[in-house]
């Protein structure tokens, strides 16, 4: 079956149908392109479990060139999705990296073929705990196997196989997306020409695991979570998920950004009310962030994906010698961090750079001055965009990619 897709794939490139037998089923609906892998193509997971009959949802932008050398895989973050530039069908809001990706932009879709896959375990069309388990006809919920960053990357590789893309020109991602970038470069060095891990780390820190645990406990402590089976009861743990989002959102900002944006300003009132309304603007802002989040995200997906991040530890998989994760790596790297990011601070990026230097890898490293915290990679940061564009331009010349 041919995948129907909003974006165009170069006309002289037919999507390989021999990659799978029977071919993965492709459909296109409000979730964009979806690929279903049949029972003959199970996904072996790090946990030891296997996932049989799973679906991956993805979006593409731009055109794949004749020799299939211009593909960029963008890996989205924890609560991101495959809608990089186009409107998210749930929220109607513009794509999360619309600032960076598009015709004539830093990641120029006139030059590159951009793919973004909803992560395994996600809730935007890829198989996850909110989807129906074909074996039981009921939502997976907590019967869904625990997944890892490496599992997500394996599932993405299956999608690329289907698209006939042997080597990515670049794999790019921030935060959890950056973890996937590192996993890609480590596990499939021959399939990655260049890699841009942004605001990320080779392992989740104790502090970051702690914040995730707060979020998970908020969800699991919500009466409507119902031991994970809320979909069977037609309810959702909205309050718990909103609290999880509020706590996490604080970690994406910085003290300076909060002070600049809100300070101690009051919300539509002259004085404090001696009560527990949202007196302060910052409270109102966080409540709003929580409430819009529950409209678009599944609570169990949040549990699974945060767990995948917690488990990520590239050094541990290589006897605590991180450089072994990148042994003789042929990949060109550009590591990027932001000065005010305290969730994935610059020292985490330096650790990546030190490990790559130990392999004499081709690596660039920039720290961008910003007071916007971890979320800076999603926001308007001209210096960041300039260096990312420069790196991609240099790599593209070496890869022999023509300018549009």
């Amino acid at each position, binding site marked *: 079956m041919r995948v129907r897709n909003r974006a165009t794939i170069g006309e002289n490139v037919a999507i390989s149908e021999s990659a799978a037998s029977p071919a993965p089923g492709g459909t296109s609906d409000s979730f964009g392109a979806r690929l279903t892998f049949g029972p003959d193509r199970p996904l072996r997971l790090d946990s030891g479990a296997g996932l049989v009959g799973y679906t991956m949802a993805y979006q593409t932008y731009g055109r794949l060139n004749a020799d299939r050398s211009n593909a960029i895989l963008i890996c989205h973050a924890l609560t991101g999705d495959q809608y990089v530039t186009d409107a998210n069908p749930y929220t109607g809001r513009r794509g999360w990296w619309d600032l960076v990706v598009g015709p004539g932009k830093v990641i120029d879709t006139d030059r590159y073929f951009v793919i973004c896959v909803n992560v395994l375990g996600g809730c935007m069309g890829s198989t996850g705990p909110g989807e129906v388990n074909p074996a039981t006809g009921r939502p997976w919920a907590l019967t869904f196997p625990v997944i890892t960053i490496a599992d997500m990357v394996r599932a993405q590789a299956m999608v690329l196989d289907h698209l006939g893309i042997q080597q990515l020109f670049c794999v790019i991602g921030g935060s959890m997306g950056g973890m996937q970038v590192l996993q890609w470069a480590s596990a499939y060095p021959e399939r990655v020409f260049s890699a841009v891990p942004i605001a990320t780390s080779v392992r989740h820190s104790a502090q970051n695991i702690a914040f995730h645990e707060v979020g998970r406990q908020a969800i699991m402590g919500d009466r409507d979570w119902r031991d994970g089976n809320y979909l069977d009861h037609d309810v959702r743990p909205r309050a718990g998920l909103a609290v999880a989002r509020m706590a996490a959102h604080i970690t994406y900002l910085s003290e300076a950004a909060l002070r600049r944006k809100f300070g101690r300003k009051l919300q539509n009132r002259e004085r404090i009310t001696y009560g527990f309304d949202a007196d302060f603007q910052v409270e109102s802002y966080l409540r709003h962030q929580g409430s819009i989040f529950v409209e678009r995200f599944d609570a169990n997906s949040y549990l699974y994906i945060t767990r995948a991040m917690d488990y990520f530890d590239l050094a541990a998989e290589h006897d605590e010698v991180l450089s072994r994760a990148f042994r003789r790596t042929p990949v060109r790297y550009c590591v990027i961090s932001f000065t005010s990011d305290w969730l994935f601070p610059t020292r985490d990026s330096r650790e990546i750079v030190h490990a790559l*230097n130990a392999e004499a890898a081709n*690596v660039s490293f*920039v*720290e961008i001055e910003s007071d916007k915290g971890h979320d800076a990679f999603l926001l308007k940061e001209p210096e960041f965009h300039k260096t990312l*564009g*420069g790196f991609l331009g*240099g790599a593209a*010349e070496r890869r022999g990619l023509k300018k549009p």
Partner: protein
Amino acid sequence: MTGFLAGRPGGIRVDLLVIASLISDGARVLDVGCGDGALLEHLTRTKSVDGRGIELSQAGVNAGVARGLSVIQGDADTDLKDYPDGAFDYAVLSQTLQATRNPKRVLEQLVRIARNAIVTIPNFGHWRVRLSLALGGRMPMTDLLAEPWYATPNIHLCTIRDLTALCRESAIGIEQVRFLDSQGQTMSLRSLRFANLLSEQALFVLRRT
């Protein structure tokens, strides 16, 4: 953007061209203290080298990366130890040794990680420097040493003979020395003592012995 390797108006410094002339096509090069990446860019364009840079200033790093060069923010004193032995064909340290905290250690690291280390220094033995201190009684300032004593990053200045002696003590082989004037043009001077008096800078090609 006019192409990441577009030529810079005015070309590059003459002393950098002298360095470039010593580097073979397609070599693996590490430029330590690469500034805005002028040498790396030149080498990439004219010799197709596999070039990397280390630069202390973040602004310099970002400028280099934005030009498509592979540059990391780092420090010659602390970050050379990460690289494996013989990782590069050439390591370049241009007008930077005098600003390091431990020049001996830096030189040892350079010849460890590269088959050839190309090191250039401003010569503190030049007659104008000597005169300035001897007769003027003030800390010397020259074209190559342009900052006053209280603002200079140069904490370990040396003469050509000093560096020669250090290499001998450290079991670092001197493959080649070139004496340069302040513009970077090669001077033909036969004796080390004369060169130490007359050349404003010097280029050393060093190897581990």
